[in-house]
């Protein structure tokens, strides 16, 4: 520290109004960002936000701190005291509600040791028999004894557990099916499980969650409750064991009875809890949801495969139908074609007949090449035979050609010439033998 720093003496003739004079001012500051970290920054932020100066802030903080401790003292014990409870007899301590006696019924099993201690102190200050006596009341200290008993139990971890085990006021009745169907499932059952969770040896106890909880969370939750490790005991409800040394048998009998009763109650409690979890599980919508999701997942592949098969089958059917239709069309087309050819054939036949008639008629026109006058029967027969011979030797087209040549020809020479030409062509083609058509040659 500046032990070597000394202030100078006031020079001669120095004077100022109120012994102070301002000479200059500070240099311009630079704007920087301070780091919002640490307790001193928080104080700075508080001053800045509430526009306090250093001394104001110190004063207000000091006041706040004082108030806080006062609040703590008052807070825990504002519960009204039941006049009936105040009349209790300390001998009947097993029947009393220890939390209510200390004014902690709001906290119950959640009350910390510190709270119990504080509550005890408060109650002692109020109900100490000396105080009552000073106020002119009777020297009845029965409620004071209740307070002492309650504190004794609540400050001893073993005894407190025994009491908490049978503290019915802390139990939450499971909701009925009807109640949960109004959409209150998570709220109502959550409270039940929170209350039951106090008996768990494993802390923290998983929460029931809500409809958005994931599958592992829900599974964890029910697994936890189906493998619940409870410290609940029923010693508190034991029958008093006679404390005389005279009747040992009686004592042992009562002890045995107590042990059996405890065991029975514990078994009942385990069954009750299991039943309760069963009920909750049965009502839990999430389980159904997960099952459906799982089912959908498992069936997804199968459904896909089935859809594929169905599609293939449909395609096959379609293809078959298309083929059948094509076959029908083809058959019809063939049928129509056949009729056509038949017609054409008939027409050709008719034409051939007509042509034959024309050819035969042509020789008749030419008077069987007998010149003028009636043709002798022999001549007629020979000519007709040869014409028929020619007709049989030539096909329909040649016949048509022959007919065309003969058409309109009336002169016997011309007609004969045409026939002679035809015979010559047929002989040349080798279909007619030389000399077979003598008359027409």
């Amino acid at each position: 520290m500046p032990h070597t720093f000394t202030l100078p003496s006031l020079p001669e003739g120095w004077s100022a109004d109120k012994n102070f004079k301002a000479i200059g001012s500070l240099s311009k500051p630079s704007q920087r960002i301070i780091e919002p970290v640490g307790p001193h920054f928080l104080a700075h932020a508080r001053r800045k936000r509430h526009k306090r100066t250093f001394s104001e802030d110190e004063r207000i903080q000091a006041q706040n701190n004082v108030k806080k401790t006062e609040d703590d003292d008052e807070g825990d014990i504002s519960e009204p005291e039941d006049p009936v409870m105040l009349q209790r007899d300390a001998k009947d301590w097993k029947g009393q509600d220890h939390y209510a006696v200390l004014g902690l019924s709001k906290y119950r099993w959640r009350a910390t040791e510190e709270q119990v201690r504080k509550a005890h102190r408060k109650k002692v200050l109020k109900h100490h028999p000396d105080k009552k006596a000073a106020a002119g009341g009777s020297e009845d200290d029965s409620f004071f004894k209740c307070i002492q008993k309650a504190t004794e139990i609540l400050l001893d971890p073993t005894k407190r557990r025994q009491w908490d085990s049978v503290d019915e006021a802390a139990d939450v009745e499971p909701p009925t099916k009807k109640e949960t169907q109004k959409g209150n499932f998570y709220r109502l059952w959550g409270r039940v499980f929170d209350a039951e969770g106090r008996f768990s040896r494993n802390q923290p106890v998983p929460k029931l969650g809500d409809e958005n909880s994931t599958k592992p969370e829900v599974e964890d939750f029910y697994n936890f409750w189906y493998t619940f490790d409870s410290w609940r005991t029923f010693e508190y409800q034991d029958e008093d064991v006679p404390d005389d040394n005279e009747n040992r048998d009686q004592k042992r009998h009562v002890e045995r009875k107590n042990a059996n009763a405890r065991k029975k109650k514990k078994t009942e409690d385990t069954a009750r809890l299991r039943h309760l979890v069963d009920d909750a599980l049965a009502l839990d919508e999430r389980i159904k949801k997960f099952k459906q999701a799982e089912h959908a997942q498992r069936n997804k592949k199968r459904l896909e495969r089935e859809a594929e098969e169905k599609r293939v089958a449909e395609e096959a059917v379609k293809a078959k139908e298309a083929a059948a239709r094509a076959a029908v069309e083809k058959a019809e087309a063939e049928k129509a074609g056949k009729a056509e050819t038949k017609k054409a054939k008939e027409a050709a036949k008719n034409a051939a007949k007509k042509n034959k008639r024309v050819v035969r008629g042509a020789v008749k026109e030419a008077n069987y090449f007998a010149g003028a006058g009636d043709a002798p029967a022999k001549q007629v027969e020979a000519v007709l035979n040869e014409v028929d011979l020619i007709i049989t030797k030539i096909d329909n087209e040649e016949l048509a050609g022959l007919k065309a040549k003969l058409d309109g020809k009336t002169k016997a020479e011309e007609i004969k010439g045409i026939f002679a030409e035809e015979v010559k062509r047929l002989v040349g083609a080798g279909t007619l033998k030389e000399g077979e058509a003598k008359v027409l040659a």
Partner: protein
Amino acid sequence: MSEEEAPDSRVCIGVSFGNSYSSIAYTAADGKTEVIANEDGDRQIPSILSYVSGEEFNGNQAKAQLVRNPENTVVCFRDFLGREFKDIDPTPCHTSAHPISQDSTIAFNICDDDSGNAHPVSISTITTRHLARLKASASDYLGRNVTHAVLTVPTNFTPAQQEALKACAAEAKISILHFIHEPISSLLAYDARSPDTASPSDKNVVVVDIGATRSDVTVVASRGGIYTILATQHDYDTAGTQLDSVLIDHFAKAFLQKHKTSTDPRTTPRSLAKMKLECENVKKHLSLSTSATFSVESLVSGLDFTLTINRSRYELLASKHFQALGRLVLAGVTKAGLDPLDVSEIVMAGGSSHTPRIASAIAALFPEETRVFSPATDNNAVNPSEAAARGAAIQASLIAEFEEKDIEESVHAVVTSTPHLEATVGLVGAGDSFLPVVLKDTPVPVRKTVTVAAPKDGGDVLVRIAEGERAIDVTVAEKVEKKTNGAKTDDEDSDEASESDDEPEEIRKVVWKATKPVAEAGVAGVKKGGKVEVQISVHADLTVHVQIREVGGKGGVRGTVEASS
């Protein structure tokens, strides 16, 4: 029926989420801060995730996978968060899963399920999973579900990166109350346990954070417990991995000498990965003991290799890097407009700060009076790897009770942006000596009180208030009498004001000079041997209130100096 009371169920931890290692800490109600170990018992949890046929590994288990399963192991992803692919440096991921670009963000092509097919997993998914693992570890340890956290970030983390980190944390069901800067967090871890927490002294602190992939130097002005960052320096080339590679080179060369026909172990990825892991261990051992053994089974083609190295050999090999770090620190101090003489504390953070030589190399650059907090130089030092997490946990305990709106308002620029004094304000004493009272770079408003001696004979005393400046007096030290000098340059921070033994040729010391008078006041009739108490309050608008009184006396002098318009 018992009514369900909602107790304040907020459980707020401090998280230091580093590029290479993360740590988590919790400050209990009794004010004790504890760094939480994960299920493997590690307090420094490697920020690494690894996937083996659908199973996720985190921390050291994942780190071990770097040898066998590098392609499905993600490392060094913190700095990639909230960035675009073109802005990132993927070098640290060279021997693990490589970052790829995926719709304006970054992803890693890994196989994280049992399908056997690699597919891109986005950086935010990776970060979320890592944070969820940290949260689970903390919740397991505390036995209560962790809901809130204070996270440390580097000073150059952008708002976009913070937003991305916040979103990831929200995915992991952690709501972030506050981001604080890593160096400030480390500093807070120290300041919280110093004895004068109620009225901390004014000091300039250099926080040296040497991590695995980057080194940061931050110069901080600490004024009455309020921190202002004056300058920062970042170096991505001198950090823990470079120190590892010095060792890798050394051992690889030794191995090749012994096995002349073998291939270089640095050329095969698996051998290199083995060497990396082992060299990191060797380096850590060398920080604690004077020799360490490198031992790898089947380094290359079935050849085992074991070799012992002593600390001085390592220090010789890595001296280049140590010097570079020293230069980095000095550059930071210069950038802040300070001299090494102005620095009264150096806080070492980050894993590599365990290396004794780094601390001593940096200490050598500063005067002897400068305190260096590192395990090598101070037995009570906070573990440098844990400092940031501890600071975050302390901050978490401070603000855990606050409404989120309150926190938001408090960290708003309206509150944090503050005028800082440009010149030191102090008292002028006899013989024109100057006593600094309110140091330069102090945020205003500020209130300071000093008690100074009046002249021996008492009587009327003149109190002069002035702005002053610090000069460095360099004298050649041959025949300097310490006493006469000491009397002239008396100084509140007397620890800064004497000679340094390291350079016998030259003695540098701080000399204060008054530059600009601000006010004068007279106190009448001070007793013989009496003392005068001066209180200087500087308001946000630079108005100065002065209050002077004799200690034990009555009355006193008050006065106001208006700010210049």
